[in-house]
């Protein structure tokens, strides 16, 4: 009893220190926090990550900044945009922060005047390679990243036989065993298709059709197809595949020799944000070290210079990545959707 009572002052001191320590993560944080706390809560429409990760980010934010409630609506990119468009049309101010995986949404939102500029102080922590994807007018910044790479079921395919580069998927030995998503449903797949066309021409997909790929909706459907052993190899996502592998599912990823497709997903603050200060604070948080540490545990890729991924995945700084420019994505996706439907008949 005596010793435990003697510990109390020390515990209190330690707690005080713990609370005080992270106070100065970036310049002006305290003032922004004060202003944000007056707004009490913010709503975040997000298509980044899966719902568990979105919940974890919100929880982390609420812990770091007590007194501000974080509400998230996690859906797919097109549904998120459609919701926002309805809100804007009805003149409703619901969301303060908007995170889509479809880069072409941002050009349109900027043009329509739905966004407000903010340059996060934490931008200095962002991996250099992403900086070129930020809006020069500060309307949106890259806060999340992911890869499209080659994936396979390890109980069906040995590592030495697994495809090493994108053209390996055309090998007749994978006939009826390849799984891909649909560019009409998934921004990840759309970007992948645009990049493949850029590298190998549309011929790539005509040849792929000879292998009769199993076409799902979302890129995440490839994970289900591989786990079900319905497909053996796939063009799949890094995060969902590794997360499923962590649970013990027989999956593995290959970083293609000709380049993993880098997906850059921006975040923007809405002009009619009901909680503009909380939104700014939240955008800072998305770029912070704490948030990215939560992300890598969920197998999402880090955009923070100092946060490295868990074993089994490689840091984005070390992997050969390729990606089309925003412009190529914006113009290319509608084109390849039509071509895709002509070639695959769906």
């Amino acid at each position, binding site marked *: 009893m005596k010793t435990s009572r003697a510990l109390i002052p020390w515990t209190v001191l330690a707690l005080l220190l713990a609370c005080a320590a992270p106070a100065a993560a970036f310049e002006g944080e305290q003032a922004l926090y004060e202003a944000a706390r007056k707004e009490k809560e913010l709503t975040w429409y997000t298509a980044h990550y*899966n719902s568990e990760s979105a919940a974890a980010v919100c929880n982390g934010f609420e812990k770091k900044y007590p007194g501000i409630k974080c509400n998230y609506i996690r859906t797919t990119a097109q549904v998120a945009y459609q919701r926002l468009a309805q809100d804007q049309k009805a003149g409703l101010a619901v969301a303060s922060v908007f995170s889509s995986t479809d880069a*072409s949404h941002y050009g349109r939102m900027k043009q329509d005047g739905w966004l407000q500029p903010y340059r996060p102080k934490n931008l200095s922590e962002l991996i250099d390679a992403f900086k070129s994807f930020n809006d020069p007018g500060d309307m949106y910044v890259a806060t999340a990243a992911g890869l499209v790479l080659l994936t396979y079921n390890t109980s069906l395919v040995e590592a030495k036989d697994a495809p090493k580069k994108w053209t390996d998927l055309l090998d007749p030995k994978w006939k*009826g065993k390849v799984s891909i998503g649909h560019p009409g*449903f998934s921004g990840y797949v759309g970007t992948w298709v645009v990049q493949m066309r850029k590298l190998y021409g549309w011929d790539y997909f005509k040849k792929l059709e000879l292998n009769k790929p199993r076409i*799902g909706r979302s890129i995440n459907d490839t994970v*289900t197809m591989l786990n*079900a052993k319905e497909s053996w190899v796939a063009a799949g996502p890094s995060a*969902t595949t590794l997360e499923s592998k962590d649970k013990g*599912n027989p999956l593995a990823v290959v970083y293609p020799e000709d380049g993993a497709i880098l997906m850059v997903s921006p975040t923007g603050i809405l002009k009619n944000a009901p909680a503009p200060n909380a939104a700014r604070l939240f955008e800072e948080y998305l770029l912070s070290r704490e948030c990215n540490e939560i992300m890598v545990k969920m197998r999402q890729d880090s955009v923070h210079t100092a946060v490295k991924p868990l074993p089994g995945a490689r840091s984005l700084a070390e992997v050969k990545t390729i990606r089309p420019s925003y412009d190529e994505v914006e113009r290319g996706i509608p084109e390849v959707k039509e071509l895709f439907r002509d070639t695959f008949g769906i």
Partner: protein
Amino acid sequence: MRWRHLDKSVFLWLLLVAALLVLVINPLARLVWSSFQDGATGAVTLDNYLAAYGRWRYLEALVNSLVLGLAVAAVCVVFGVPMAWAVSRTDMPGKGLVWAAILGTFIMPSYLGAVAWILLAGPNAGWLNRVYMGLTGAAAGPFNIYTMAGLVLVIACYSFPYMFVFTRSALDLISSEMEDAATTLGAGVLRTTLRVTLPLTLPAMMAAFIVAFLEAIALFGVPALIALPGRIQLMTTTLWQFFEFPPRVQVAAAYAMPLLSITALLFWLQQRLIARKGYAALTGKGGERRVVRLGAWRWVMLGYCLFITSLSFFLPMVIVLQAAFAKAWGRGFSLDNLTLANLRFVVVDQPITRAATVHTFVYGGASAALALGLALAIAYIVHRRLVPFGRALSYVAMAPFVIPGIVLAIGFYAAYTSPPLALYGTAWILILAFTTRFLPIAYANSNAAIRAINPELEDAVRILGGGRLLALRRVVGPLLKRGLAGAFLLVFIPATRELSSAIFLYTTGTQVLSVLLFDKSDEGNFEYLSAIGLILVLGTVTLVLAGLRLVGRDFMLTRTTTT
């Protein structure tokens, strides 16, 4: 007419008609209007229709959907009618088990069933194919879920409960007198059943046929999982293109409009077929219902029931259980792969699941009560010709079902985000949307129920000096009470699994389980998907059983006490 002689119930009818207009016409009219509007300027235009129907691919999808709808409805007859007859009229053993399995089938969201069926009958690695290959030594199995036949089977598995419930409640009302007449004239059991008993249930069967047909056309989840990989273009998967960036919701609305005329056509056909015959089964003259003795055939009948429910419930449930309790479902079944972590995660670690469970059941219950009350009243008004244009009213009550939920949601959003009904962000927008969306099921069921009541029963009250409301309270009400619990479930259960309209209308305080489930299916996380699905199925079954006990019905929807 002097006030004193005016039947006061007229005001009640007018009020109900007004409610129907607010709930159905308001969102639908906005939808129709938007189909003629230019997306950017709001000017009146026909361009949306040109965009929606200007391509052969889009028309082909519509034709495929119609074929799918007809095939599904036909399979529902083959699945549902014999089971309904066996449960209602025969001495088949194991009726409780069969009914429980059908209840479970009805509760299971069809996209969860579709994922399970991919694992059962996937052409490369489906369990059924592997069993077949193991038994015969063949190099490939015969089943391929990624075909039109596979799609029809999966959708029919989750629609035939409508056929079962509708037909069964009709069979429960038919007395044995007419069957006896047939028997007296020398007809056997089979002949009597086919020529007398089942034809009497025709209105109910047609109502269920229409419901199954419309649901199959408007479904999105199962086609996304099976038709897309099977390379079959359908209306709903095509519709999705209009929601792609940049979204063209006006074109989506235009694309869905012809479905309203298809519904009208179905109605006209139904009226034509039923019009000149009398189907009033429930008359003032008592009448008993005797059980048909099947002899050895009762085991054949049970076998058939269990075969169908295995397809729809038992086999998919095995898959769901395996995944819900697996650390990694891709590893298959083994003892060291068992865990409770998935259930614990979705129940304990994600408080959102608990909130969503409560929302799901509260919204489902509220909208089922609203839809059922309104549907019964409208059906009554239409059949007793209490207001002019009754036929039009019944069409209005059925119309919402054919518009795919994702398009209907646009109408709801427009109707309920601006004054006088600014409901966005509240539970009411979901409750009203579900009410409108499932009013057709409630209406189809109520319509069949009211049709079966012979008006002479009420006329007796009125001849004796009672008013219309007294007749309702003392005669019609008690007669309907019998089927009420079943009718409530028919709306409650689809409302608990409704996804497509909920996905645009929920906000952070009003999530429902179906949305969580769909998120998981989109995230490739089958362990959590199954765990939430299991909670939905078990939770609903528990609730339904407790509810039935409360209203004094047993498992089989018959009275527990013989009063």
